[in-house]
């Protein structure tokens, strides 16, 4: 595939019920009223030269290059700022315009490095293209006058450089930061000749810049340029693919020179990101070729032995024979598998298929267990399907946005930019979160209500909000009557109307003033389209599923499901959480969320897979570990997951794995779980394979192989090989055939195929005969389950209680620059922003303990204790501390407990009773970790016989 060049239409597309017809260079063109002339020209196939205009930015009219002539009008107006009018006759190329443009361009060029004009080798730019387009061949002005050619470069950002000598002060970068990203980190300092792009009068690295790359992408002169392009040169081909970081699922062009990635550019036609990106997807892809990648299969008898490199055949056969041996000795149900939310749909489908068909049991689970499993349970119970109700673009029609237990600017930054744009347009904002997250108050965004509840009291809060709706006559009665199960509604209405659920009664539990709760409830119920967005601050609680149902109750009661601008929107953590759940990774259900006990469904899989299947649910991850410690579970195949670092109570998890006889880890790196493994199978990065990911809006996006698998096999090929060795042959030549099988067996995917995705770009399930082009918004005209089912959501405080010994509450999460267990981002320059986990603590709590900024502190819970540096932060409320789990050495999950959601066993990461004290040395666990990690990662580099 050649290098993809997207058309830039100059200004954004306008939407209007009125169309306007005009003539440009003799061509008739019809465009929506409000369109600019430059856009109309581009739609007519006429490219007007431009520098300051771009179709993702509002028109600015500063570069004076896109001048045109209009019959009957004087002068040469800028086509980017001039709207179309019916009957206009526009000329874009006349002798006068040519002369004017060349003159303008020459002036720009007079204060710009011009090596390229003299045949020098430079990275091509729009500036050069425009110079050529206007016929600039020489610059008559010398450099003896004042210029910017010796201005100092800013190389402080690890990923891009700012060279003021190339800057023409067109403001595209500033406007991209404002309009696209919404961070407002850049400005033009000074006036006239002294005007200069500035990141707040400080180096980029020290500024508010979040390194999303929008400014670099916008720059027409290479004044802002990726360092990777400077180092590796320009790409010669590109492959459109889907980002492997968060659940937004941004579409990217992987730009390559040969088989080397030069840069990742957000793809304008990507339906989830519309050409935007964040620091992770845009820049943090170096891990894919990091020296830590393990490229040869390895085995060992005991996990304390050094690894021995072997051939693929030997590793696969060894794993298969061990699994067979274990089953022969301990029974069919003594082994299982874990699928990954980082792998493709096709890969997760194969892992669960292998478990069910080749292992012969249902012991398959996925890392969604520890993040959004309550979403699946709660949504299915109330609405009939386990997925978010809207597309991302729906937020553009929201009037009141309620963000609960989510931190989109850090965890889902590209969607956060879209949300902030809507907020700047005037939508109201309610934030329900213990921490003062950035959305509460940042540039041009301010929450109307921030309800800083105590961790663990979500259900008390949602009941209090519902109480106000029900008792103040704010229920959308006609909607409920038409759409919902009325008996269940009456039951729920009576429950939430009880005084004990009022904001006043709940105030002691939540810590939030009742008046604020009442005001927020009124705003949500009466402010127009109300949309709820939530994250792991909802699900990772002992009442995670209850809270999901509580939010659906509130949305149904106010008529906020089944149309644009509303809904219940889970912000999924990893790139393919939705997909791994859709693909039947859970132990109790097949693809499309159909229980294994449903005879007709099971028979359809038995017929397709030609093997009898179990009708009983299998073990969840936590159950597998418990069973291992009980001695009944002895073997585990883990594809692309690191349960030792990501799951709660690390020591319990480690003990469970250590009790197994064969742990097979398939991953890019020797992750923490691999420390307990007996077989290591090298994984492949998202750049090395074909497949699909499904994002938080149910969008199925293509992942396309840009380079060959570094270890020789894509992940799906490894599972196929293992299954074959186990005696259950799989016959696939390409992942598209796996998707075809998924489509045949899954009604909600019936219309999906790689061919279809290549044709339309991406599609949101359900995609079938009823919805051939997919379903952006669900539950239009009626809920999937028929009538929406209100559920009673009694607030039951967690059993994890603070006391004199553990008086603080720890809540954990992630930050912008790092991702999940950090296996990828820690192996990139993103460490510049976060090279260690820190403990955020309120000044009052810090002072009580004599803790100062940067002090090493001990963080202890009933499960264990670790040490880490303290960061004093007023984002925290007194009594609550926060940390991330990105760095293995920190061991944040040594501290978290095994308390979990009642319905799904999703761990209660968000509430752990802890004590914090000054520490003199690192914790015993960290000391132990350092030693055992060294022991368990040794590799004996004997050359294996070739395959």
């Amino acid at each position: 595939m050649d290098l993809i060049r997207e058309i830039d239409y100059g200004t954004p597309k306008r939407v209007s019920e009125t169309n306007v017809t005009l003539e440009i260079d003799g061509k008739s063109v019809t465009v929506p009223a409000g369109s600019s002339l430059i856009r109309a020209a581009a739609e007519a196939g006429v490219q007007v030269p431009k520098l300051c205009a771009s179709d993702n930015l509002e028109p600015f009219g500063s570069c004076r290059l896109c001048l045109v002539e209009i019959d009957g009008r004087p002068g040469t107006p800028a086509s980017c700022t001039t709207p179309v009018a019916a009957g206009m006759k526009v000329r874009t190329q006349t002798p006068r315009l040519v002369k004017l443009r060349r003159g303008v361009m020459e002036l720009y060029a007079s204060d710009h490095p011009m090596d390229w004009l003299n045949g020098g080798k430079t990275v091509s730019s729009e500036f050069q293209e425009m110079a050529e387009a206007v016929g600039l061949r020489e610059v008559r002005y010398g450099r003896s006058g004042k210029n910017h050619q010796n201005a100092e470069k800013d190389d402080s950002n690890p990923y891009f450089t700012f060279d003021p000598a190339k800057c023409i002060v067109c403001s595209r970068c500033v406007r991209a930061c404002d309009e696209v990203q919404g961070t407002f980190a850049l400005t033009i300092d000074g006036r006239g000749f002294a005007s200069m792009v500035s990141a707040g009068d400080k180096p980029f690295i020290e500024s508010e810049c979040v390194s999303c790359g929008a400014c670099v992408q916008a720059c027409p002169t290479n004044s802002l340029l990726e360092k990777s392009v400077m180092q590796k040169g320009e790409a010669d081909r590109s492959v459109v693919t889907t980002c492997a970081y968060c659940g937004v699922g941004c579409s990217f062009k992987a730009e390559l020179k040969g088989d080397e990635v030069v840069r990742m550019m957000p793809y304008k036609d990507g339906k989830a990101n519309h050409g935007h990106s964040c620091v992770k997807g845009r820049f943090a892809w170096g891990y894919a070729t990091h020296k830590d990648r393990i490229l040869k299969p390895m085995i060992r008898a005991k996990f304390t032995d050094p690894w021995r490199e072997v051939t693929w055949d030997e590793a696969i056969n060894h794993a298969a024979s061990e699994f067979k041996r274990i089953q022969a000795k301990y029974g069919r149900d003594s082994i299982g598998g874990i699928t990954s939310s980082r792998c493709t749909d096709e890969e997760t489908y194969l892992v669960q298929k292998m478990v069910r068909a080749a292992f012969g049991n249902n012991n398959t689970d996925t890392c969604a267990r520890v993040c959004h499993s309550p979403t699946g349970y709660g949504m299915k119970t109330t609405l009939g399907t386990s997925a978010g109700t809207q597309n991302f673009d729906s937020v553009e029609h929201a009037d009141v946005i309620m963000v609960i237990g989510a931190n989109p600017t850090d965890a889902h930054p590209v969607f956060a930019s879209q949300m902030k744009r809507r907020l700047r347009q005037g939508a109201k904002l309610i934030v329900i979160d213990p921490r003062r997250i950035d959305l509460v108050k940042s540039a041009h965004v301010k929450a109307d209500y921030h309800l800083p509840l105590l961790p663990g009291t979500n259900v008390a809060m949602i009941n209090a909000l519902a109480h106000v709706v029900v008792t103040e006559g704010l229920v959308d009665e006609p909607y409920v009557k038409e759409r919902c199960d009325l008996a269940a509604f009456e039951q729920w209405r009576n429950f939430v109307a009880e005084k004990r659920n009022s904001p006043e009664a709940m105030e002691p539990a939540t810590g939030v003033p009742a008046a604020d709760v009442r005001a927020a409830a009124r705003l949500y119920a009466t402010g127009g389209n109300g949309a709820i967005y939530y994250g792991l601050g909802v699900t990772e609680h002992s009442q995670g599923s209850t809270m999901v149902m509580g939010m659906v109750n509130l949305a149904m009661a106010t008529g906020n499901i089944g149309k644009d601008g509303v809904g219940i929107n889970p912000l999924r953590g990893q790139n393919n959480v939705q997909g791994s759940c859709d693909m039947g990774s859970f132990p109790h259900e097949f693809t499309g969320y159909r229980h294994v006990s449903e005879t007709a469904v099971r028979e359809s899989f038995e017929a397709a897979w030609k093997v009898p299947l179990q009708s009983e649910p299998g073990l969840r991850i936590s159950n597998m570990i418990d069973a291992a410690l009980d001695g009944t579970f002895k073997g585990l195949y883990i594809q692309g997951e690191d349960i030792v670092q990501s799951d709660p109570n690390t020591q319990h998890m480690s003990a469970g794995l250590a009790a197994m006889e064969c742990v097979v880890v398939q991953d890019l790196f020797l992750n923490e779980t691999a420390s307990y493994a007996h077989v290591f199978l090298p994984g492949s990065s998202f750049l090395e394979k074909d497949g699909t990911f499904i994002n938080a809006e149910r969008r199925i996006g293509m992942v396309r192989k840009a380079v060959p698998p570094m270890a020789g096999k894509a992940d799906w090929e490894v599972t196929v090989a293992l299954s074959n060795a186990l005696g259950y042959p799989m016959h696939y030549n390409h992942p598209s055939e796996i998707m075809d099988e998924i489509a045949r067996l899954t009604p909600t995917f019936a219309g999906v195929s790689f061919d279809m995705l290549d044709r339309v770009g991406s599609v949101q399930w359900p995609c079938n005969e009823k919805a051939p082009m997919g379903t952006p918004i669900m539950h239009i005209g009626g809920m999937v389950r028929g009538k929406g089912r209100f559920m009673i959501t009694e607030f039951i405080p967690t059993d994890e209680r603070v006391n004199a010994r553990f008086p603080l509450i720890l809540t954990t999460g992630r930050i912008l620059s790092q991702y999940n267990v950090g296996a990828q981002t820690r192996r990139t320059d993103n460490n510049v922003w976060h090279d260690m986990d820190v403990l955020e603590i309120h000044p009052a709590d810090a002072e009580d303990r004599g803790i100062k900024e940067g002090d090493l502190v001990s963080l202890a819970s009933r499960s264990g204790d670790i040490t880490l540096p303290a960061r004093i932060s007023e984002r925290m409320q007194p009594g609550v501390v926060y940390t991330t789990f990105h760095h293995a050495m920190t061991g944040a999950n040594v501290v978290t407990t095994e308390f979990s959601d009642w319905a799904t066993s999703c761990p209660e990461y968000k509430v752990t009773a802890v004590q914090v004290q000054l520490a003199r040395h690192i914790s015993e666990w960290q000391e132990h970790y350092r030693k055992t990690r060294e022991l368990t990662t040794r590799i004996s580099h004997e050359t294996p016989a070739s395959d």
Partner: protein
Amino acid sequence: MEAENMVHMANQIALFFASYPKDEAVAGVTDHFKKFWEPRMRKQIIEYVAHGGHGLHDLALEAVKHLQ
């Protein structure tokens, strides 16, 4: 799994359904055990109840009877 953990899990489920009328609640807990608990976990709780079911919520005790 440790008995204490099992009792805790079962009681959490019972507490959710406790807001419903008793028949509905028992059916809800039973259904949950059947749909989500792997057979060896159900076997463990059945045996635990056979030995008195100490610490189990009434609804869980009742539901376990329907598993046998």
